[in-house]
């Protein structure tokens, strides 16, 4: 089922949680709402679910007005960060809950409930835990049960609020791949909220980057990472070095600033892995001194000083070995890809790099 969000706004006291949000979620897509805490992503999700009502604007399900529909009638599945399983019920009863509370004429027979719950538990690969209580399960298992419970009522939309937020890194990685596979199997429109960019980029079909109650960019994971629409998106999705053209005159030239923009008014954004380190000076390269060299897993992170400023560069292990860098070395930096935004007012784009 498709979801359309039209001009949604929400305030809590003086705090603007959502500022005129428009968003289309096509049927069957897995969409991530990504942003720092307090950006309004959870509020938006709760408005879609009907747990929160917007001050203005509309929510349409499949083109039909749903803004004032009660939570019960929205037919959405919701997965909470802290699972919210019913502690006094077994796993089986938790999953069966949505079926058992249906009005008598809609309620499936006991045999049918048993069959459906068993199928769902098989889908989340936990059918062997049916008679356990939630307190006997690990965090990852609980979240999978919560998901099975949400799917039991055959929702038209699945909403997940930081579903992996309370889990440790390894389980998290496992679960998000699993969620992706599950989505490909069930193919239900899904929206999940996360503050973890890696999670959003890996799992989602489309990523909606939010900041301070607004949408900064909507795009595929590749688009938002390689062509960020604003300085905020650049900063939020991965590490980035920011160069002020005023201080880095030599580089401002390579950036080919657009007409009318004076050097000194622009910010150049360069990712750490888009900078090359050379031993010899070349036209347009920037002198720097090596401060720290950290080998982190497959890559090597080099911290360099240009004047009083710190620049981070990420090299492959091979490249780092070839260079043989050590602390105090004088080197020259060359950017491979730069993106320039006007410094003030923030967010306005002037041109893009080489």
């Amino acid at each position: 089922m498709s979801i359309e969000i039209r001009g949604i706004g929400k305030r809590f006291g003086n705090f603007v949680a959502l500022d005129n949000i428009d968003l289309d979620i096509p049927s069957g897509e897995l969409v991530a709402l990504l942003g720092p805490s307090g950006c309004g992503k959870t509020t938006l999700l709760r408005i879609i679910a009907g747990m929160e009502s917007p001050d203005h604007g509309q929510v349409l399900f499949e083109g039909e007005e749903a803004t004032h529909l009660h939570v019960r009638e929205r037919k959405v599945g919701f997965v909470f960060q802290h699972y919210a399983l019913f502690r006094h019920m077994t796993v089986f009863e938790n999953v069966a809950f949505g079926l058992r509370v249906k009005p008598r004429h809609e309620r499936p027979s006991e045999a049918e409930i048993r069959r459906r719950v068993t199928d769902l538990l098989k889908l989340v690969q936990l059918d062997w835990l049916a008679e356990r209580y939630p307190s006997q399960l690990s965090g990852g298992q609980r979240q999978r049960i919560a998901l099975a419970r949400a799917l039991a009522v055959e929702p038209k939309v699945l909403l997940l609020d930081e579903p992996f937020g309370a889990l440790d890194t390894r389980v998290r990685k496992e679960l998000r791949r699993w969620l992706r596979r599950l989505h490909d199997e069930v193919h239900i429109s899904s929206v999940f909220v996360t503050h973890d960019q890696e999670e959003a980029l890996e799992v989602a079909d489309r990523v909606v980057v939010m900041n301070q109650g607004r949408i900064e960019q909507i795009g595929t994971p590749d688009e938002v990472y390689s062509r960020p629409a604003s300085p905020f998106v650049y900063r939020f999705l991965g590490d980035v070095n920011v160069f002020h053209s005023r201080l880095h005159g030599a580089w401002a030239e390579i950036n080919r600033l657009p007409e009318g923009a004076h050097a000194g008014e622009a910010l150049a954004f360069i990712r750490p892995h888009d900078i090359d380190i050379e031993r010899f000076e070349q036209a347009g390269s920037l002198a720097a001194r090596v401060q720290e060299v950290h080998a982190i897993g497959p890559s090597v992170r080099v911290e360099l000083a240009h004047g009083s400023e710190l620049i981070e560069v990420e090299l492959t292990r091979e490249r780092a070995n070839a260079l043989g860098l050590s602390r105090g070395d004088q080197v020259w930096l060359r950017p491979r890809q730069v993106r320039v935004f006007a410094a003030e007012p923030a967010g306005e784009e002037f041109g893009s790099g080489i």
Partner: protein
Amino acid sequence: MARNVLPGFRLGLGYTLLYLSLIVLLPLAALVFKSAELSAAQFWDIATGERALASLRVTFGSALIAALINAAFGLLTAWVLVRYTFPGKRFVDALVDLPFALPTAVAGITLATLYAGNGWIGRHLEPLGFKVAFTPVGIVVALTFISLPFVVRTLQPVIEDIEPEIEEAAAVLGASRWQTFRLVLLPAILPALITGFTLAFSRAIGEYGSVIFIAGNMPFISEITPLLIVAKLEQYDIVGATALAVVMLVISFALLLAVNALQWRMANRHSAAGARR
């Protein structure tokens, strides 16, 4: 297994038993010994005397009603105090403990004055045909007053423990408010509710101070067993008083044991989990 912070099992258990023996068991044993001065037939006569039986009915009956009232309204109070914020919430919260702090005689006199035929409340009730003070209804009012904190204070931490998300989860799954309460919330708080009910009930059974002022103390109608015991003591019929006390003790103990057994069964059913974790 990790070492415990508290002293070992044997020392701990030894202290517990010694302490309980000195504080609880010893006085109760003395009571039973004292009543043993009576022959079985004499004991039976005192225990099943018409006036004694009537007083037991009044005592246990009104305590039960009061505890039931508090189970319902104490649950509501605890819920409101935990889940909602409103001006003066701290004040209301403090108010709940007042029946604990007030000397029960003061409570009794206050209530009697309020509910008497010329009191603030009694004045309006009397023309409607409700007599509260100096009737068994008055006993229930007094017992409800003094046993309120037990239910509220037992339930508060348990309700605080239930995340609001649990209710939202039930609603998203299509449960009505009533279904959410009956299937999700009530099972979670029932053990605590029973504990609170039991505490309120036992407190009400033993209450003396507040009741005698408001009950009117008419034999066969509004006379409670503790009062009958005091009356016997005043006539230096110490053995007779202890006999009645033993009867109360046995009934109370049997009731508490029954409630506890019920609770054990429930706890085992709900969190077989906890035990095997």
